[in-house]
């Protein structure tokens, strides 16, 4: 498995996490899971191989998506990893621009849209 096929999924809801993982794994991706921004940062720091894409929820306990993104962009090792935000918020495009993400998915997202965004950004 090439490192480009690795995805870091940052999402606080366990059901969404599990379903996304199943979906992505069924498409041949490898998925790293994190339940908030802090856990995501820790796993980036410890990762053997860096993910080719980060799917990022915005509203999470401990560390939200905005803070995570700021810290990720501030770290030269991780700044280049593309990010797709996934949020229930109405102002999706505005949020995407504000956070400087490459992709955006509105919850509840369609699995075809998820897979499209993932394959576009990760390749």
């Amino acid at each position, binding site marked *: 498995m090439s490192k480009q096929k690795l995805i870091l999924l940052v999402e606080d809801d366990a059901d969404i996490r599990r379903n996304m993982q199943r979906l992505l794994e069924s498409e041949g991706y490898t998925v790293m899971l994190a339940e908030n921004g802090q856990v995501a940062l820790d796993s980036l720091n410890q990762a053997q191989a860096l993910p080719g894409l980060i799917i990022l929820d915005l*509203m999470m306990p401990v560390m939200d998506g905005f803070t995570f993104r700021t810290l990720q962009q501030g770290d030269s090792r991780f700044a280049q990893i593309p990010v797709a935000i996934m949020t229930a918020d109405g102002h999706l495009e505005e949020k995407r621009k504000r956070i400087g993400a490459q992709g955006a998915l509105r919850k509840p*997202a369609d699995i075809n849209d998820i897979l499209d965004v993932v394959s576009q950004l990760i390749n």
Partner: protein
Amino acid sequence: MADLKLLRKIAISALIMIAAAVVQWLFWSHLNPLIFVLFYPAVVAAVLYAEPFSAIVFAAVLAQFFDSPDFSFHFNWQDDLPRHATFILFGVLIAIFGKKRTVALEALKTQRDKLAAVKVQLSEALRLRDEFLSIASHELKTPLTALKLQLQILERRSRPESHIAMTPEKIQEKLRPALRQIEALNYLIDNLLDVSRIRSGRFALTYEKVSLPSLLNMVLEDYHDQISAAGLSIKQKTVEDVTGVWDRARLQQVLNNLLSNAMKYAPNSELAISLSRKDERAIITVADNGPGIATERLPQIFEPFDRGGISHNLGGLGLGLFIVRQIVDAHKGDIKVDSEPGGGTRFEIGLPLTPTTH
């Protein structure tokens, strides 16, 4: 703004003084110091502040001013009274209109202050509404997202071209979380509807005989999995079988909400629940030894959409305790909270055993 007004007043006062001095010089070729002391300040006060007393003094001195160039205060009743009376009348009129103007200005200012306060309230209400909408959409869409993913994955796998065999067990396994998410959605929507019922005054109770301990056991059973997932250990002490006449579904909601708050805000702690009777009242206490609530936040915890100051993220709409309090109030009971940071939180609810008529 205020500084500018003051500057303008001072400038006008100075101009009046200078103009008056010029007039005096032109008429009598000298300046009378007494007039300066008595007259001009009165003129200034009367014109700028329309203060009644100064206006009258102004009129009286004005009479003298035109009467005797040497400012001798010579007064002849017969000759001077009509003219003096006219001037004093002017003074009174200035005073009356000035007063009216001042009153009107003050009323205007009060109105403006009130409007400003209303504006602040409105924008706060608007902010709360926006925040609530954002929270509500997030909270509603979270189970919806999980549900949609679950069902779409199931749908994909059950297609004829899918290579994964869907055994009944696997379908079962996929559908169970979906049903749970529907329950979660339903719970959120019920809460929202309750708030709307409470706010429009359509919150009626259906009374029946309820045994508190068995209701509590039912709730604890319902939540069994979530309680252990939250690492909560329950210490339950029931002194006696407390039975009363209450709204069963609503009381269950009270216990549900207190329990789910403990799971959310005090995970991995010990939760002591006790039921007892005291003076024709049932006493329910729910106490955790979690992180507690900051003292200054305590008054707000029963307000709708309050989430203990913990921003977004822990989930929930901030309606649980608001609804608890409304249910307790509807039963003519009372609810108290004791908490301090680091010292856990303790809720105590007192409920009359039978509905009271007052």
